């Protein structure tokens, strides 16, 4: 398995007397020493990741092609891809994939905007004042561990079965990570940073806007990324109730018809969109708070 070069490289100095060594030993790597870092493309890590994904798809394909797993439980990759194309062009339960996806994205974004609008001020209140912390901390800690499916019925009773309920359920799941990340960021601002601004004559409002907010921004970004993950996880639950569109709704209706290919296609769509969003947020993060990655 292993090539002979490294073996001789390590073994020679031990086995052969020094004067017996050839002048130019292979200039291989010695233990503990690495070759200078080269920026190679594609990076090794990416290659490994892609190979792993390809391997898993191959296993999937093999399992369904050999009939090891029934098509009802796991349709082949080809069937899923073909089905995905049909959903995109013809649609599934009266709506195309774009319409399903649009409905879901609109809900997640509405919930994101709402939870940022509430979560950031709430995080500031917790981070800055004893009153805010005393009041809001128990609420957040109460809300945080409850699974969305548990409070979904209550939200339905309160807000009906309309769009508000769906957005509300997603927003409730997104709120705690944003609040906690914001308050952590606000509390973590170095005292010297605040004092310097105050010594330059900054008002309390100026300190908040010009020092505390930018200092907390990297943390708020982290919270937003976690919140988006929580939001997508809650999407399917939110679309349980009286939805006529949405990727989560599409998956559930397909399950009722035992259309496993649609279920798998829907899962892949959610994963793909979540990945794209994460990527977009990272770009935004690098642009807005790139300074935080330099230290």
């Amino acid at each position, binding site marked *: 398995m292993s090539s002979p070069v490294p073996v001789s490289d390590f073994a020679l100095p031990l086995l052969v007397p020094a004067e017996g060594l050839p002048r130019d030993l292979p200039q291989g790597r010695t233990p503990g020493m690495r070759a200078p870092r080269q920026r190679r493309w594609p990076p090794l890590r990416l290659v490994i990741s892609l190979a792993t994904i390809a391997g898993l798809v191959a296993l999937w394909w093999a399992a369904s092609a050999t009939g090891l797993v029934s098509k009802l439980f796991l349709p082949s990759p080809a069937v899923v891809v073909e089905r995905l194309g049909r959903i995109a062009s013809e649609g599934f339960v009266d709506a195309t994939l774009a319409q399903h996806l649009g409905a879901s994205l609109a809900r997640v974004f509405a919930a994101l905007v709402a939870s940022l609008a509430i979560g950031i001020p709430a995080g500031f209140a917790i981070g800055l004042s004893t009153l805010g912390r005393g009041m809001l901390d128990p609420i957040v800690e109460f809300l945080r561990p409850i699974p969305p499916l548990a409070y979904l019925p209550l939200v339905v009773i309160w807000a009906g079965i309309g769009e508000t309920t769906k957005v509300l359920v997603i927003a409730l799941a997104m709120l705690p990570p944003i609040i906690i990340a914001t308050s952590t960021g606000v509390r973590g601002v*170095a005292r*010297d*940073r605040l*004092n*310097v*601004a*105050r*010594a*330059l*004559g*900054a*008002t309390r409002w*100026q300190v908040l806007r*010009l*020092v505390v907010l*930018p200092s907390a*921004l990297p943390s708020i970004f982290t919270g937003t990324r976690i919140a988006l993950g929580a939001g997508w996880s809650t999407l399917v639950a939110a679309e349980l109730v009286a939805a006529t569109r949405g990727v989560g709704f599409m998956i559930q209706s397909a399950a009722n018809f035992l259309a496993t290919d649609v279920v798998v296609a829907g899962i892949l769509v959610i994963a793909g969109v979540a990945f794209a969003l994460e990527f977009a947020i990272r770009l935004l993060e690098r642009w807005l*708070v790139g*300074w*935080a990655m*330099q*230290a």
Partner: protein
Amino acid sequence: MKLTIDGLAVRFPTPDGGTATILENISLAVPAGELVVLLGASGCGKSTLLNAVAGFNPAYDGAIRVEGRLVRAPGADRGVVLQTDALYPWLNAWENVGFGLRIKGLPQRERDARAEQALALVGLAGKGDHSSWQLSGGQRQRVSLARALVADPEILLMDEPLGALDALTREQMQDLVLDVWRRTGKTILFVTHGLDEALYLATRVIVLAGRPGRIVVDEPSSFGRRSLAPGVGASIKSTPDFAAARERLRAALFEGAA
């Protein structure tokens, strides 16, 4: 008088419900243009004194006045340079230096022009577009000094500003502080625990010692002015005068602490 302190005492509540007296019976008058160095071992309350003057700790007994105005809160009349440079990493050097002017609402063009002037004063002309992570520790502390200077304060408060720098950079920065002091004529209150640094910079040395901290030495010093003469500089540190003064101060520090 730029700064007067009358019967200052600072007390903090302790976790067990009592009070700890950090500073007691501190009185001091600083005329314009002096470079006063506060020297003391760690824990003697010298930073507490500086924080009180800066207005960071308004809970003190006695009176602190800058140009006759009682100090109760931080203000732009007192420029502050701290041990950590406390630069804002999301701003470049110009923006950091111009921060105090932005707070006053000056337009960007004027802010940048004055920031560039201040950067030139601390030897960083042309580095305005650098972010703080692109600057060395000494350079960051220079930006921090420029940021305090650009607001044109009555008095400059420096709390161990060179404490986190390596020995060589520290010596260069001592010369920079003297140079800036000579060129701006600012009144400076400089806190340090370095004997050499104190003697080299000061026109007046104040030694704080004991618990609670009190002033045990308050005397004029001539090395600060003498080192500015052509060809003198850091070489003054190897004169017999300097060594003798250092030993006297060292004795005062330990005597006061005992």
